[in-house]
């Protein structure tokens, strides 16, 4: 009897503790202190990619003249940043959070809406008119600007001049084409050269998003409703996707490194992707001078433009001590400094979304690797045409459902059913 009563007592104690800490103040933070901000006026920033985002922060630091400003940059993989922000912010304490954090545009709304008070509005520190229009919707919420737009994911069609010519096409044949025309060229290239036109990872439907955005369409509309069943842009994009696969124009890859290998090894004739892929393409010395750049193809639908976006992220300031200093730093560098953007292009190869920057010298640099093309300038011109899209909250969630349905589609399920089923499943999950 005594044993049981003691156990009961212990369990009672547990429930009591559970009830107590249900209040706001509780819930300790796991990994703290090592990155604890604001104690000695030091500003902490989290970002990923040593050679890109972090390099950009370092360039910004060089351009910022404030003796009292100390920035500590902590490198985290993007997945880790997402995890740490989620665990930290949801625990209700801001301990251990950074002052500045980089968030991918397609994820931003999910953070801004999930943790409304965690971020600091930075409207007063820069002018949104100076930035590419398409960057504003994903980085603002409820009429306030939270993100300072950073790099663009403006897309282009990188292609191998030798293989395209062997198939009987010239640069002009690739300029301002539709995806339908692209699939035909792809077929010719594969038939005549035996090389696949593009490489695709079945788990990554980025190419569908690129296609959809050329007409300003997405999985959801600005009201947050899921628009898959009657989405003509997505329908057309899926048809092209299947055609490319059916024609054997695609080399299937399984992850990022095999994707990089596919074009570095000369196994594909083109890479439709974001501008940030350029350094990876030019990393292969043996293909120097063989690559050129054309605008991204567009969908057939009315209003389609030959400009789209893939990836890209922005800087956010957390609502903790030091927020003014952090916002000030971002505003004075990323938010308004043309010279900084010149260095950014020259030293890092990153194209910002700050419109006045594209008039500088660095942007007109003729890239030897790409046949002397001014690729940075071309990208910055296309960037201004990118249709604005509200990425909403559930891009990645919906895409996981769609990826499964796409497999069914490739195995013969009708496109109507695929879209209708994806719609139903997505509505079940995200409403």
């Amino acid at each position, binding site marked *: 009897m*005594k044993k049981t009563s*003691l156990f009961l007592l*212990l*369990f009672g*104690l*547990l*429930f009591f*503790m*559970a009830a107590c*800490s*249900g209040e706001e103040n509780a819930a300790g933070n796991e990994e703290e202190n090592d990155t604890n901000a604001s104690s000695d006026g030091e500003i902490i920033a989290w970002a990923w990619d040593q050679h890109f985002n972090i390099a950009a922060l370092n360039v910004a630091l060089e351009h910022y003249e404030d003796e009292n400003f100390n920035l500590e940059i902590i490198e985290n993989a993007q*997945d880790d940043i*997402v*995890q740490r922000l*989620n665990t930290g*912010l*949801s625990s*209700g304490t801001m301990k251990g959070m950074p002052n500045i954090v980089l968030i991918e545009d397609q994820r931003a709304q*999910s*953070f801004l*809406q*999930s*943790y*409304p008070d*965690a971020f600091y509005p930075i409207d007063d520190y820069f002018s949104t008119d100076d930035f590419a229009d398409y960057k504003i919707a994903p980085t603002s919420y409820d009429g306030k600007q939270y993100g300072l737009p950073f790099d663009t994911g403006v897309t282009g069609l990188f292609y191998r001049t030798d293989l395209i010519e062997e198939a009987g096409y010239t640069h002009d044949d690739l300029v301002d084409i539709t995806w339908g025309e692209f699939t035909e060229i792809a077929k010719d290239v594969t038939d005549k050269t035996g090389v696949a036109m593009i490489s695709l*990872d*079945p*788990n990554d439907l980025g190419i569908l998003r690129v296609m959809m955005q050329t007409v300003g369409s997405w999985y959801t509309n600005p009201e947050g409703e899921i628009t898959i069943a009657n989405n003509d842009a997505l329908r057309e994009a899926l048809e092209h996707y299947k055609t490319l696969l059916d024609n054997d124009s695609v080399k*299937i*890859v*399984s*992850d990022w490194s*095999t994707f990089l290998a596919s074009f570095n090894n000369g196994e594909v004739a083109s890479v439709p992707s974001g501008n940030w892929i350029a350094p990876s393409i030019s990393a292969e010395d043996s293909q120097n001078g063989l690559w050129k750049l054309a605008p991204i193809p567009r969908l057939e639908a009315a209003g389609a433009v030959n400009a789209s976006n893939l990836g890209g992220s922005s800087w956010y300031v957390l609502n903790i001590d030091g927020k003014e200093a952090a916002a000030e730093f971002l505003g004075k560098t990323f938010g308004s400094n043309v010279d900084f953007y010149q260095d950014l292009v020259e030293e890092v190869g990153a194209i910002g979304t700050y419109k006045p920057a594209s008039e500088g010298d660095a942007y007109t640099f003729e890239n030897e690797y790409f046949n002397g093309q001014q690729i940075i300038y071309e990208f910055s011109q296309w960037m201004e045409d990118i249709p604005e899209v509200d990425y909403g*909250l*559930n891009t*990645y*969630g919906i895409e*996981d*459902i769609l*990826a*499964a*349905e*796409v*497999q069914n589609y490739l195995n013969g399920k009708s496109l109507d059913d695929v879209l209708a089923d994806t719609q139903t*499943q997505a509505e*079940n*999950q995200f409403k």
Partner: protein
Amino acid sequence: MNTSSSYKAKPRNRQSMTTLRFKKQTIGWLFIILSIIGIGLFYFYPMVQAFLLSLQSGMGANHEYVGFANYVRLLNDPAFLTALSNTMIYLLVQVPLMILLALVFSVLLNDPTLKFRGFFRTAIFLPAVTSLVAYAVVFKYLFSPDGLVNELLLQLNLITQPLNWISDPVLAKITIILAITWRWTGYNMIFYLSALQNVDKAIYEAARIDGASTIQQFFYITIPLLKPIILFTSIVSTIGTLQLFDEVMNITGGGPGDATVTISMYIYNLSFEYTPDFGYAATVSYMVLLLVVVFSFLQFKVAGDDQK
């Protein structure tokens, strides 16, 4: 009574038997109270909290109580059902396969006439000490379209085109099953090997004299005698498979589509990949608990009838 005789001289030894026993018990409790508090605080308290969380829903930090709505949602959630059926496929194919393999290996390696026994035992056990992520990444490259496995099969003329081990729904599952079998067979084998040391050799001698073949010895002596340990390993493996995460995350990322997503991976996606809904994620994790209980119970029922 003998022990207390030495205290007889002291004046305060007039306790009744009950108080003495109570004192003994208190001392016993004192010994374990720290671990009880520790386990309660770090085990049961989070479980209670997780249960309370599973009754809430909402984005990130702004969740509210919704009663059992999450549990209703769970039963109608096709993504969860896919994850569940994938996990069940792993469980039903992989666990029996691995247990059988481990048994066969352990019996082979228990043969005293076998040369280099130590080497083989180590070789088969070694995978169990590798890091989950590290071996998963290695498997991913072995099974990539131009990886070693395809290369080998091509050289042997068993296939004419590289197989899409990772991007084909069925092959991807097979890859995962191969990977976990490689990783865990040796681990289970060690349990059987140690259990075999306790089996009396005379039983096998008697069986041989009676004319039992090696196969018969395996099925009628080894397996029945190892039954308790087989039960133990199959429960541990079942629990491990229900919590499968690292391999799938690193080898296929759940793909192609959702063909290899497991329940644990779905929990991860709900928390960190999609707009976070920790309440619903906690609900799914309670589902894992429920499954573990049900399966362990079933296994006890099926195999544990002659437990003493």
